[in-house]
Structures are given as C-alpha cells and as structure tokens.
C-alpha cells in the first residue's frame, strides 16, 4: 500500500535494519548530503544495510513510500551522481565488505563497499590484481567503480571497469535480488550486467560484484620524458601506439602543472619543459626491456630532452610521485579546484589543449592539465578561490566552453567520471532526442517506480515519445522531516 509522503518511513527502515543503521540527525544528514562534486542535496535519512536481503527491504520500503534511493560508496564521485538532490534515502554500501577470492578462476565476489585498493592488496598474495585504478583508489569503493564504470591511468591497456565485471548481484525493482553473469564466459541471454555497469545507481542497487582479477605482470619499466613542445609529447604517444605498443599507462602533464608540482614537491622535475610524459610498460622482462627502448627512441626522435627509465620499485615510485601528487599540488595555488573530464580523439589532443588554454586565458583563470594521453582523456583543472566575487560563474562558463570544444572536436562528455547531474543537461549536445528517449526507455524498464537515483544522467523530458509515461515526481521540499 502507498503511504502519505514520508510518514512512517524512518520507522519502517529502523524495523528492517535496526535503529543504529538509520541516521536522521541534521548533522549526520549534512555529511551525506553531497559527494566530491559541488552539488548538495537534502537526504531524509542515511541507511547502512549489510547485504542484499537488507537492501531488498530498503527498496521495498522506498517503493511503498515513493521516496528515492541514492546509493553511495565512499562519496568520491565528481559528477554529483551520489548527491541526493531529490531527497530520500541515501543508501551507503560501506557495510557490505565481503571478499571471496577465487584465484583458480582469476576472479572474486566482492561486496559493494570494499575499497578498490584493499581488493588489490588482498589479491596480491595470489599474484593477482584488480585492473581499474582511479586516482581515488585508496578511498573509492568497488560499488562506486561499477556505478561509474571507473577508469584510471592503467585502463589504457586493460579497459575500464566494465571489462572487469563478470557478474553482479543487484537488487532491482520490487526488491528482487538477481545475480547477473558469472564465472563462465558469455552467459546466455541479454547482458544486463553490462548495462548496470556505469548506470550510476539509476537501475538498481549493486550489492556484490564478481570482478576479474588479472595477473600482476612479472616486470615493469617506467619512463619519464620531457619535451620542449606539447606536440612532441603527443606525437610520441601516437607513434608508440603505431609501433604496436599499448603501454600500461601514458600520462601527460603540462608545464603549468609541472611547475605547480615542482614548487610543492621539489622532486627535480624539469620545469622548463612544455610537457612531461610518463609511460609505463608491463610484461615479461624481455618484453618490457625492448618496449622501453622503443619508447625512448621514439621520444628522442620527437625532441625529448631526457629519458629517465626506472627499473627499481623505489625509482618507479619517485617518477609516479609527481603525477600522483598533482591534485595535492593545486592546494598551494588556490583553495578550490574544478576538475574536468572529457575525451577527444587522440589525434585532436594538441589542438584541443591549445584551445583550452585560450579559453582559460580569456576568463583569466588558472588552468592546468594532467591527463591520460593514451586514450585522449583530458582532465583540465581550474584552480580558484571560491571567495572571489563572481568566480564560480566564470569557472562554470569556462567549463561549459571546454566541454563544448571537446565535443566539437569529436569527443565525448565524460571519459571516466560519469554524468550524474553535473553533465546531465549537456547530454542533449551529444545525443538526439531519439537517442535520449532510447536511454530513458532502458531506465523505465528497470525502474518503473522511479525510485533509483532519479533525475541523474538523463536531462528532464528525455522520454519524449511516450505521452502516457510515468509522471514526474513532485515532492514539496522538507515534507519528510
């Protein structure tokens, strides 16, 4: 039966999960009112279910009360996918911590709340690892990785999260628990798990994931190369791939970022270089040795000054330190930053970067670049002080121009951060009404009641070709509390 909005919701949740697993004090709600984006919502309560059965209870309760459920892992998302902007229940996955390793089959069933890096640490004694390695991997959860189809530097060679999810335990509409996929390849029937990956909690709640674990390669070489021109670095990236090599990572840092990092770390980075390229090759010793030589030769051909090759773990960590410290280094430039995520075809990298600098200069903004050059995934970063009058407006306008530029150059809205709310309204620039309608139909089939993270990913009115569709949720603010 349907209840009046909100009445008895907390009581029902407490009965299902226990008092201690339902938070509703204002200070607690504030902590869960946003993810790592700048967009804040107003949750009614926060719950901590421990398994699929409890999540199923929460889904049934939410559907009977007609309130949204927003799943949340560690809250490191950058697109507001986990911000409860429509109110309702924030379902935190952190209590779902099971890990069942299956080294024989190179996979593991993992609770949605398990932290990415912890999984790889647990798999390491078996010579295995989880390939996706987003920058937030020491904090972000597997459930969040699944929701956002997360990437990271090493997905150039191994693909994003979707390539590493073999199965999912998902709670869908009606509180039904389904297990999709499995350890055997190509399960007969539609690949529903592949659709759930990257759906940002809008199709159901993932409680466990069966993830692929890949062997830790026996050897690794890391190269740091500096270039007098960005073109030289970009040309090196293209020629490396044309030579039949797909390095495990190919990361590019521009001069502005290098200077910021060097001022902070003093790691001896060449601040006079226009661009620094970090490459990593993994595999058998014979392979990485020859690959490193080939990359070094190509880099020198394109004007690289020094080519530094790390063969020890300590040296490797030092070379990566600059890349991994990039976002920390921003803090000494300005108190706030806005990190973008867009993709262009790799051949358009140089011209896109130049145009991005022009946009930033026009708005008199400090913009730095550190990104995944191998797959054209740009991360222009605007450093600013939110206290400056009018600055937020400027940052957002510049950001919109940058995204529009990337799309004009044949790119995509997001390479790894997701759409959430941040880029929802830009979806119309990437897709036709018919395309968006098709996506809205997927959502409708999965979530006829509209409780799973409503109004994310797709702009309002996407379901434009069916006038008898589900009515839009109208919820007066504050009615549940």
């Amino acid at each position: 039966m349907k209840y009046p909005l909100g009445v008895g919701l907390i009581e029902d949740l407490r009965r299902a999960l226990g008092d201690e697993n339902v938070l509703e004090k204002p200070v607690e709600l504030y902590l869960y009112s946003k993810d790592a984006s700048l967009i804040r919502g107003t949750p009614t309560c926060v719950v901590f279910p421990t398994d699929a059965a409890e999540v199923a209870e929460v889904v049934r309760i939410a559907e009977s009360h007609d309130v949204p459920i927003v799943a949340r892992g560690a809250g490191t998302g950058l697109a507001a996918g986990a911000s409860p902007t429509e109110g309702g229940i924030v379902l935190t996955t952190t209590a779902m911590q099971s890990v069942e390793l299956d080294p024989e089959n190179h996979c593991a069933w993992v609770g949605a709340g398990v932290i990415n890096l912890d999984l790889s640490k647990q798999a390491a004694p078996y010579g295995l690892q989880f390939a996706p390695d987003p920058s937030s991997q020491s904090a972000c959860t597997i459930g969040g990785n699944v929701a956002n189809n997360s990437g990271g530097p090493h997905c150039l060679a191994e693909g994003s999260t979707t390539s590493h999810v073999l199965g999912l335990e998902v709670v869908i509409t009606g509180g039904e628990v389904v297990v999709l996929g499995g350890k055997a390849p190509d399960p007969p029937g539609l690949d529903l798990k592949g659709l759930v990956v990257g759906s940002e909690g809008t199709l159901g709640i993932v409680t466990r994931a069966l993830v692929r674990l890949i062997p830790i390669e026996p050897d690794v070489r890391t190269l740091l190369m500096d270039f007098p021109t960005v073109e030289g670095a970009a040309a090196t990236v293209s020629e490396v791939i044309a030579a039949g090599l797909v390095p495990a990572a190919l990361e590019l840092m521009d001069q502005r970022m290098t200077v910021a990092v060097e001022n902070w770390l003093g790691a001896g980075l060449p601040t006079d270089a226009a661009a620094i390229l970090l490459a990593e090759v993994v595999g058998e010793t014979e392979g990485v040795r020859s690959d490193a030589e080939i990359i070094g030769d190509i880099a020198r051909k394109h004007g690289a000054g020094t080519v530094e090759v790390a063969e020890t773990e300590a040296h490797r960590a030092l070379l990566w330190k600059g890349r991994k410290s990039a976002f920390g280094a921003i803090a000494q430039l300005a108190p706030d930053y806005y990190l973008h995520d867009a993709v262009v075809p790799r051949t358009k990298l140089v011209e896109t970067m130049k145009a991005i600098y022009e946009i930033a200069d026009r708005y008199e903004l400090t913009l730095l670049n550190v990104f995944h050059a191998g797959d054209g995934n740009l991360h222009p970063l605007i450093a600013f002080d939110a206290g400056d009058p009018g600055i937020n407006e400027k940052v957002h306008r510049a950001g919109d121009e940058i995204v529009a530029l990337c799309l004009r150059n044949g790119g995509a809205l997001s390479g790894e951060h997701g759409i959430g709310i941040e880029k929802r309204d830009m979806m119309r620039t990437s897709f036709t009404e018919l395309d968006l309608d098709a996506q809205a139909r997927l959502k409708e089939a999965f979530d006829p009641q509209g409780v799973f993270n409503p109004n994310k990913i797709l702009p309002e009115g996407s379901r434009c070709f069916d006038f008898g569709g589900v009515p839009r949720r109208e919820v007066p603010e504050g009615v549940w509390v």
Partner: protein
Amino acid sequence: MTAGATGLESLRTEVPGAPDTALGVAPRSPDEVAQVLRHATEHGLVVQVRGGGTHSGYGSPITPDIVLSTRHLAGVESWEPDDLTLVVGAGAGIAEVEMMLGGKSQTAVMPERPGDATVGGVISVGLSGWRRARLYSTRERVLEVTLVTGDGRIVRAGGRVVKNVTGYDLHRLVVGAFGAFGVVVSVCLKLWPVPPAAATVAVDSVETARLVSRPLAVLGDRSGIRVYLWGSDEEVEALAERLGGRHSGGHEWPDDPSGAFKWSLRVPPALVPEAIGRLPEDWAFVASYGVGELRAASEGSGAAAEIRDWAEAAGGALVVVEAPPGALDGLDPWGAAPPAVDLQRRLIAQFDPARVINPGRLPGGL
C-alpha cells in the same frame, strides 16, 4: 509470402538461405531498414536478420516472413588508425575488414577464422575471437552502435572515442542480443595495434604454458596444446625459447571443429581440463584455457544432456550453435532459462514492441 509484400517490393531481392516462403530484402540505408521494420511491426511479421549466414541456426529456431540481409550496409565510413577507431557498416565481412586493418598493423580482435561472418553478425550473436584471453571479448570493442529499433526508430548509443562513460551502455547491450533491440546498421570499433612478431608454440602441458605470464591465447584440441605469443622480436623469441616447444612464426589459428552438431561449452576457466575430459572421444573441440570457452562438434547429440547438466551445475552452459533441422529431440538450444526474464522482456518491449526481429530466438523464449 502473402501479408506484407506490399510496400516492400522495391527492396525485394534474392537472399541466400532464406526460406521460399519468406520475402528477401536488402536495404541500402538505415532509412530503408526502418521502412522494413515499421512495415513488419504494422503487420506483425517475423524478421530474420542475415549477415554472412555463418550462424543462422544459432538460437531457438524461428520461421521468418522477411529475411533482411545487411549486405548493402557494408561500407567503411571512417578509419582513424591514430585514434584506433573504425566506423563500419554491419554487413562488412570480418575477413575483409581484418585484411584492410592488417595493412596498417591493426586489428579489430574479431574471430580469427570468420568465414563469411560479418561485423554485425558477430556482434549480434556475441562471438569473440580466441585472442579474448588477453584482449577481452567483442563487447569490449564496441564503442558506438547505430541501430534501427523494431518499431523503426534510428538510434545511436556510445561514441567514437576509445574511452567514454556518457549515458547508458546500450551499445554493449546489443552484443549477443540477437537483434532484440534492433537491427545493428553500423558500429564504431576500438582497434588494437599488432606488434611486429608473432609465434605459435606447441607445448606438452598446460603447466608449461603457464611459464608465460599473459599469452595472447592458449588453445587445446585433440592434437595438443598451443601457446600464441606476440610482441617485439626479442620478446617473442625469448618466450618461445622459454616454453621449449616446437614453434613457428605467425599465428596458426584452428578452424572451428566441424560436424552435424556444433556446440559452445562455457565453464569457469579452471574447469577447462575437466570439461575436455567429459567430452566423448568422437567429439572434436577447440578449448581456450584461461577463458573457459570450448567450441565442439559432433555427429550425434547423445552426450549433450549430461554435459549440460554438469556445466550448468558448475555455473556454465552448453549451447547449441548448429544442429540438423529437427534433430535436437527435445533438447533446448540454450538450456536453463536466464535470470530476470521478466526484466529482459520489459527491456525488449521498449525497443521492439511487436517483437518482430528474431522473436523467440533468445533463451527464455524471448
């Protein structure tokens, strides 16, 4: 063919393999595909989509009113070697596409012995090449798809860049969906560079194959086990030596086993040796270690039920890829029904409300 011939006369053509009772059509554009499908939806006709015809018998049998050939949707729209992307029509032959890509040392990592198979066909039935052991399956290669839904809407999903999380992954959902969401008319594929050296090494056991960390593939059949290597000259030479077996330059990929019945046996990878042991001696097979996929062929189907019971209990499946007409004797082509059949049905209904494209061909009667 009675109902529905009207309106499609201009598209009528001979389509090999089409039953006499069916109308053959070969549209030349997405709009013409939409015209056919709208007509089918209006009149409740069953449409079978045909690429190269290599897997026409795969899935539950259907009786088509219309057989839609993709052969005129076969052009290469764009190939950007430096971006590792190829946009190609669904009717393009895998063999021709891979030969073209090989000219610049690239590959789409499609099945290595494709015969007449097309890009659209391989995607729609969800086939992958043996190299999936290292480079993952066909679904990982599909970056963008343009399809015409059962009710005649032209829809695009994904994008033409190698990394993209914009919107729902409808472009991956169509892989292995047997056209349930629509007729795939063109796709953007993620390419992969081919390194200069390759070798195929015969080894005495799977344990020996494990001396190499991540080979391109390890395949076994009744003649033995072979490890497929690629990389730089130095690397391939060294690894072939480490494996200690007879080796030849290049890759000698096996043909799919032939027989009256063709099977796809799928098991968790660690169970491949046991799966091989369970196949009757007169079944031919090629098994992919590390993947868990075995392609098998036989003259009879007597042992199938027992093998299927074992595979399903182990979390796998035994699927019929081809069988003589009427010879399955009650054996379902797919086996146990998949999970969430109701949800699958709701999804399909959003794209093919009259259920005209390959109705009932998927497991679960979908």
